[in-house]
């Protein structure tokens, strides 16, 4: 596994823990299909939450959340439907969140959670 993917994976774990702390139940992670990948799938009450996690080691190249593009957000919407069909989940309400994480490996990671970004 390449270094950037390792960082991404550990970021996703940090994000999952953070969401669970906030009472958002993570039900799936790193779900893949030919159309793309969903980092985290969670339930906030009855609302289905698709979470995009971006992890960086520093802000030197900008904020991690800046890397979440409009195209990616559109794709997540499609992926949400595909995920729901595969898992026979009936979508009542759908929300897309973004989590930006800075992990420099020395201090505790900084977590920036944005709800309903698209």
């Amino acid at each position, binding site marked *: 596994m390449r270094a950037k993917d390792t960082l991404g994976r550990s970021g996703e774990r940090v994000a999952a823990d953070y969401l669970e702390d906030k009472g958002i139940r993570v039900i799936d992670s790193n779900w893949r299909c030919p159309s793309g990948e969903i980092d985290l799938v969670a339930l906030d009450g009855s609302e289905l939450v698709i979470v995009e996690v971006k992890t960086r080691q520093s802000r030197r190249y900008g*904020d991690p*959340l*800046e890397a979440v593009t409009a195209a990616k957000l559109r794709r997540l919407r499609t992926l949400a439907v595909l995920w729901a069909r595969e898992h026979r989940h009936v979508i009542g309400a759908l929300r897309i969140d*973004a989590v930006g994480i800075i992990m420099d490996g020395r201090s505790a990671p900084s977590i920036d959670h*944005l709800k309903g*970004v698209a």
Partner: protein
Amino acid sequence: MGRALAVALVGLNGHVIEVEADIGQTLPSFVLLGLPDAALSEARERIRSAAQNSGIPLSRRKITVNLVPASLPKKGSGFDLAIVMAALEAAGDVRRTGGTVFIAELGLDGRLRAVRGVLPAVLAAIKAGWKEFVVAEPNLAEAELVAGAKVRGYGSLAQVVADFDADPQDLVLAVPDGPPAAAGSDDDGASAGEQAPPDLTEVAGQAEARLALEIAAAGGHHLMMVGPPGSGKTMLAERLPGLLPALSDEEALEVTAIHSLDQVRRGSNALIRRPPYERPHHSASTASIIGGGTGIPRPGAASRAHRGVLFLDEAPEFDKRVLDALRQPLESGELVLHRSAGTAAYPARFQLVLAANPCPCGKAAGKGISCECTPMARRRYFGRLSGPLLDRVDIQLQVNRVQLAQLSDAGPRESTDQVAVRVKLARDTARERLRPFGLVHNADLTGRILRGPLRLPPADTALLDRAMGQGSLSARGYDRVLRLAWTVADLQGRPRPCADDVGLALTLRQRGEGL
């Protein structure tokens, strides 16, 4: 919400712009609304880097900036500082900025850069009732010219936000190293403009031309010189601004405001005190002379010569349209330019000096034996100078080559300062006399006044009356001679022109009939 003030310039007119910034809880982006032009749209990129590098990064959320009123087109980079201050206030990083007008461009390193047009911008904001200003350090001298303005100049964004109560711990307060501020193309460091004008002592001989120059300076008369190459037309024209009195406070501010749109003026040279001198080349386009450009038009040479001298060397070589475009400012003292993005009015009350060769080949002086031009070519040459334009040129003078005896004559010659004293006195006399008519210079006198309240006794105008009776002088020419006669009298310290003054005035415009 964050708010800060900036100024949008349309020509010399400034409008105070309210910059609103709002931060939305969504993914990072930067939206700029309110008719920004290309340079202003790029502010988004400059601002994020500048804030980051100053140690006070912008909010990592969506920042929406609106420039109010949104319908007014805004151009240039002078809004950068106001936008970043509004954004920082919206994020709670600085205390209230309301009431302060910010005018500066940002470098990526957080340095504040000077912009053009600071003087008219500050003037407009003062007129609109705002008193406090923040500008880039190099603009400080210029902004402080405005009475009543409380101006602070800074070197970097970090210094500005520190004064607006940002947390000083993270700020990068040192002004970034780098090339001196003059590196920017907008920053010409205008120092060359104020050197001492050339002096009249350098002019040998040319007694008649010297007199004409003195009369032109005293009465504000436009001047045309016709003479062969090398007869000193340019030399004489260059010395006219030196004869004009220094600009009054009000005039100086007007002139500086126009020049401020062209270049950043700094230090003790910030205020233009000498009447400006512009000598555009004869290949100049209409836009470069009267002003123009895309969007909001910029001032041209005619406006830069406001309260000074506009010298057109080789006048008949200018494009006919350029010459005719000068008729509007000669008439009204103002140039009104209409373009898609707005209308700009620039003052252009200049003294026109035209120079021409006697013919296209320039050899028709004296007996003109060696001249190779056909009569047709000579007619066409002067035909470019239209009647309406020459109508406004009171003095039309033949300039001859200097003779050897005059050139080597080492006797004392009058200096510019000596002549300027007489010019000043004559101007003051004229001003007093013309006050009831609302005029300043003898050149502004109309025929109605000349032949009405200022009518001269018939004995003194006998020479003119005879010339007119013979048909060698037109009614318009009659008035022009009278205008000149009044200036001659002012220079002589006479309360009104005598017959000799009228006679002298008549000789100063003989060329006009022959052209």
